[in-house]
């Protein structure tokens, strides 16, 4: 046991002292925050990703002139000239497309043509279709003597649905948006750390193997102790890095939140003033949703799956490192490890989010290969006080995970102790299977 500590200590110190660790730990949160900020910025400010598109309209019916709605991305130039002349301009001038409307089109709803020099996007087509529809339907409404104001009022109908859960303590407000967000942030962290630090375990094992240090070391310690020491040491590095990130983002985030809450209270004041301000309602909605989340449960489960997910996959990564001689050979053995992880992450965003308590989600959160990510996404939906209706799932999932760790660690230990002493041989899956049952 002492030896495991000694080896873990060496792993920990040699990694923490590296420049790359310090740089990554300090810059990591900034990089991640910057990355997400960029995505949000780009999707909010569409002007950056979209240029203005000018479209020539050849309207032979005369019905649509000056009636197609424009916005920042689409402008319509109505011209009275033959189609061929317009098409020539398409080539020479700065036009995106020609919209040709034949004489009978408004009645038959057929024959509209969008002619562009490049392939138009789905978005372009649906925008123009939508605007054409609007003009035609407006004409039809007025033909039937329906007032334009009435139409607008009907179109602006918006129902507000409040989701409420029936619990023992009475009715509780639902918390879908916040739960989803929280679950995802947790799952992303778990996914990232399993990958980053799992690969570090694999590389570390391979380094010892190819440098032949391993033979000296395992004449002093058992291979299993060496493997566990390595996994534990790297786990400490991961936890330290995560802790620093949490502290950093609290300190840095403190400033940002301060600035934000000023803004929020201003908005709330404004909201009160405007009586029906949607924004103020949204803010108070988020606040009340957040208060529903069981912070201790979510935090505890995150820590549990953060550590156990790493241990489960870490053992497998160690086995891969022991089985191969060089990085290029790792691919074939990495696949069975990476596929469940990526699959879990993909399913979490699709099936699990749309139906967090469905049977597929429930089963996936029992299987140790997928549970760290799937269960993490589901946990924030278990709100309120402890309830056995979902409590059993958490207990079962944790038990399966611990059992899974025992199995993968046992397997990895077997593969490891044979693999690290074997050089210059291409290993097959069949061979790995045999190693499991070798006598030491």
């Amino acid at each position, binding site marked *: 046991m002492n030896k495991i500590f000694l080896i873990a200590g060496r792993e920990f110190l040699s990694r923490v002292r590296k420049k790359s660790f310090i740089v990554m730990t300090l810059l990591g949160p900034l990089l991640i925050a910057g990355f997400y900020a960029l995505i949000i910025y780009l999707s909010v400010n569409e002007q950056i990703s979209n240029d203005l598109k000018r479209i020539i309209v050849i309207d032979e019916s005369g019905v649509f002139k000056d009636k197609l709605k424009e916005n920042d991305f689409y402008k319509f130039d109505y011209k009275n000239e033959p189609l061929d002349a317009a098409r020539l301009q398409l080539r020479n001038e700065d036009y995106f497309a020609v919209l040709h409307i034949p004489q009978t089109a408004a009645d038959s709803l057929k024959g509209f043509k969008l002619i562009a020099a490049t392939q138009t996007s789905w978005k372009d087509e649906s925008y123009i279709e939508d605007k054409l529809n609007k003009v035609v339907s407006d004409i039809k409404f007025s033909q039937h003597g329906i007032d334009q104001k009435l139409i607008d009022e009907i179109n602006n109908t918006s129902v507000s649905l409040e989701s409420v859960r029936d619990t023992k303590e009475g009715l509780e407000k639902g918390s879908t948006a916040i739960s989803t967000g929280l679950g995802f942030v947790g799952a992303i962290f778990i996914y990232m750390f399993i990958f980053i630090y799992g690969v570090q375990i694999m590389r570390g094992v391979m380094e010892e193997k190819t*440098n032949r240090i391993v033979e000296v070391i395992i004449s002093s310690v058992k291979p299993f102790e060496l493997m566990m020491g390595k996994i534990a040491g790297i786990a400490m590095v991961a936890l330290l890095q995560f802790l620093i990130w949490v502290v950093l983002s609290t300190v840095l985030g403190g400033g940002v939140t301060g600035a934000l809450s000023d803004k929020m209270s201003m908005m709330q004041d404004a909201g009160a003033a405007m009586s029906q301000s949607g924004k103020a309602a949204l803010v108070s909605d988020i606040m009340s949703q957040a208060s529903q989340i069981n912070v201790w449960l979510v935090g505890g489960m995150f820590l549990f799956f953060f550590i156990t997910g790493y241990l489960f996959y870490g053992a497998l990564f160690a086995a891969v490192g022991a089985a191969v001689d060089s990085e290029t050979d790792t691919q074939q053995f990495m696949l069975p490890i990476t596929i469940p992880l990526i699959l879990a992450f993909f399913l979490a965003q699709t099936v699990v989010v749309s139906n967090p308590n469905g049977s597929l989600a429930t089963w996936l959160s029992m299987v140790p290969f997928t549970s760290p990510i799937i269960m993490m996404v589901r946990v924030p939906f278990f709100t309120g006080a402890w309830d056995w209706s979902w409590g059993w799932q958490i207990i079962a999932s944790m038990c399966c995970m611990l059992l899974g760790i025992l199995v993968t660690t046992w397997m990895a230990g077997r593969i490891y102790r044979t693999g690290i*002493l074997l050089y210059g041989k291409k290993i097959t899956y069949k061979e790995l299977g045999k190693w499991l049952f070798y*006598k030491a």
Partner: protein
Amino acid sequence: MQSLQIINVSKQYAHHKALDSVSLAVPKGSVYGLLGPNGAGKTSLIRIITQITGADEGEVLFNGEKLNPSHIYRMGYLPEERGLYKKMEVGEQLLFFARLKGLSRADAMHKLKDWVERFEIKNWWTKKVEELSKGMQQKVQFIATVLHQPELIILDEPFTGFDPINANLIRDEIIRLNKEGSTFIFSTHRMETVEQLCDHIALINKSKVVLEGEVKQIKNQFRTQTYEVEHSICKLQLSSSFVLQKSTPADGNMALSEIKILHGTPNDLLKELMPVSHIHSLKEIVPDMNDIFIQAVNKNVTTPSAVTL
């Protein structure tokens, strides 16, 4: 008293038998040479002694006790393929290895001080291993092997990669440690090392021990009663007790003749030679380890009983 006894040890890998009921005994305080061609099973045997792997059959006794994990603290092992953590500083690395062998930090520091001075490597202490030359790295690794003052030190090809000066330094250290009571096992195919240092040897070929014992005795066993005589050129006419194997001219009207004695003693040979020529010298042609090695291996190959596969 035996430091190490190997009794009928066998080890089977998937498709070949690495060791086939190997038995040998390493006396306490000896320098024991483990010889054999590549792939004979030397490394497999060493891995069993150092408890890296276990034997399928047979028994290993260390100081008369059945091998157990506590024994690894009393052994030191230098593998043929050397390896150190490249990014780690020399001092830290030595401390790490010493503590793996059960020394406390303070104890290890104390012992290291002595070695660092002896090997004159004080200014390497904070250097990373990758900054050292290969020979320097080997020195560091040698210290790591013997630092915890093991009773049994196993060295796999210890002199490869050393320049003559450093090789001498290591040789002197081996002799010193041996005098202080450490038993050594060498695995090597360098016969000059064996002649210089070993007092006992075992020759392993094709998973079996083909020769074992004290170097003196083995040499005796391989003596062929052949003598080299330097004498003035003349026609040698020998009785049936002697066979002239070859005669080559040498400097100054002399000849060198190899004569095998079938019956009698070197004195009898001299008696027969003296009347016909001037004799300058006579010495026994003693087989060196190289000859013995080649002879034993070849014999082993051609003897049908030795073919086990």
